[in-house]
């Protein structure tokens, strides 16, 4: 078991997501920054869909009760194992009773902790990703325990990799969304000619942007939405749906983020700047 001594801002179990249940309104959930999760799992020779912990901004304190191996990825958050510093993208041996503590955030917004074999919490609708009310809680709290299997005899093929972080990027690649054609020339210029900043309203459901563009009075019937769908409200607010985002919506879907750009955006926080590039 991994014991959560302190959960930090927002700590949750995530795999790559819950697929095949959109038709009953279940969002896919899953890790916000899929790129980082895949790298962490790859280092441990895990399946890429094995469940990891997603750590948001301020880190948790976690204690392991059996031997295993872990790897950290994503945001650069100062981390120590029994008070000794540990780095992202290395295979770290864990002994019984070891304590992993996260401190200050240096870069990015969401860190990942993968364990050899993946965390073994109960699957609900084919996934371990926490999303209330599909799972009983949306996130982990102090005192929670997360199961994993003991690993004592493992020789990693690679112990460390140098990674060029995908999230240093500030340009998000977008495709035309289903209602792209409703945008006026003026709106198009506004969207692509200037940078935007992430507003305080940013979470696993959606990221809102601080700056407004010219509004609209386009009305439409409710229709499907996906992670990465950029909706435009009548007031001119751009809302980018993320992994816990609703499966349907009534605002025009003007743009659609590339999947890689969803991982980039997942590492942005309040006040960070970004630009759009149409592909």
């Amino acid at each position, binding site marked *: 078991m991994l014991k959560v001594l302190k959960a930090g801002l927002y700590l949750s179990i995530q795999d790559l997501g819950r697929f095949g249940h959109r038709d009953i309104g279940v969002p896919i959930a899953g890790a916000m920054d899929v790129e980082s999760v895949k790298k962490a799992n790859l280092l441990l020779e895990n399946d890429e869909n094995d469940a990891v912990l997603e750590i948001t901004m301020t880190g948790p304190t976690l204690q392991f009760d059996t031997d295993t191996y872990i790897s950290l990825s994503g945001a650069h958050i100062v981390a120590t194992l029994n008070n000794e510093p540990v780095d992202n993208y290395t295979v770290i041996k864990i002994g019984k009773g070891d304590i992993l503590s996260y401190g200050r955030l240096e870069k990015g917004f969401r860190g990942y902790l993968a364990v050899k074999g993946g965390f073994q919490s109960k699957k609900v609708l084919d996934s371990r990703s926490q999303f209330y009310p599909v799972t009983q809680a949306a996130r982990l709290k102090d005192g929670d325990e997360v199961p994993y299997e003991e690993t004592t005899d493992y020789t990693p093929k690679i112990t460390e990799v140098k990674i060029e972080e995908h999230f240093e990027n500030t340009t998000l690649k977008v495709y035309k969304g289903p209602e792209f054609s409703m945008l006026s020339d003026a709106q198009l210029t506004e969207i692509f000619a200037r940078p935007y900043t992430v507003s305080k309203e940013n979470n696993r459901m959606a990221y809102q942007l601080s700056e407004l563009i010219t509004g609209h009075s386009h009305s439409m019937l409710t*229709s499907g939405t996906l992670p990465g769908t950029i909706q435009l409200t009548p007031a001119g607010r751009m809302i980018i749906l993320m992994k816990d985002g609703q499966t*349907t919506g009534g605002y025009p879907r003007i743009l659609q983020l*590339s999947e890689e750009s969803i991982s980039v955006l997942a590492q942005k926080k309040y006040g960070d700047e970004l630009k759009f590039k149409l592909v």
Partner: protein
Amino acid sequence: MKSYPISIKPFGERAVLVEWPEKVSESILADILDFMDAFKELEIPGWEMSVAYNSLTMVYNKDHIDFEETKNMILECQEKQAKSKTERVQHLWTLPVCYDLEFGMDIEETAKTLGLSVEELIKQHTSHQYVVYGIGFLPGFMYLGGLPPSLEIPRRAEPRLKVQKGSVGLASKQTGIYPQDSPGGWNIIGNCPVDLFDPDKEDPCFVKVGDKIQFESISKAEYELHKIEGEVGIYEPEKVVLNA
């Protein structure tokens, strides 16, 4: 039956949006469901589909897709659909609603705004069958169509931060049930004790798109009984096969 014209748009790297004429219509919905049945018969693993009113979002979970190739596959499927029509089983569900003031905190004000008595409002709300045009927004949330114009009322000026699970609301042309606690701006007229989403059940959401819903007014005592029956897992909502 002749199929409606459709338009197919790319929607990111692994999805397409298929749109039928932009109307809320039972025959368009039937055409979408026919298309879905024909597509499912192709048995291509990895595709998931979700319908909302006049549109179908098709997502390929396995990989990125080639838009032109996918578009042709969909058009071919639509041709095939016109030839072979599958029989679908659809249900009319009777869902109990307690319109007591304890749950329907807006019912008096809503009735007043609509120029009806509370009894008339309940009578009208329970005397129509509503078509399920989609499930989305929240797990188990049904988009219902067919509300009589006499019950159309704008959303509340200020949304509530928390609307209780099971709350039955009215908002413009829609009526519906909140399947979980949620912020919401609908006018709340009652509460339905039936779980519309239960991830522990083999079928977490018993209602399907294309089914119909009729509400039945129940007393507070019946509400409590259904609630307990639901908790111990012995409550089954009443259903009738529509196209038997």
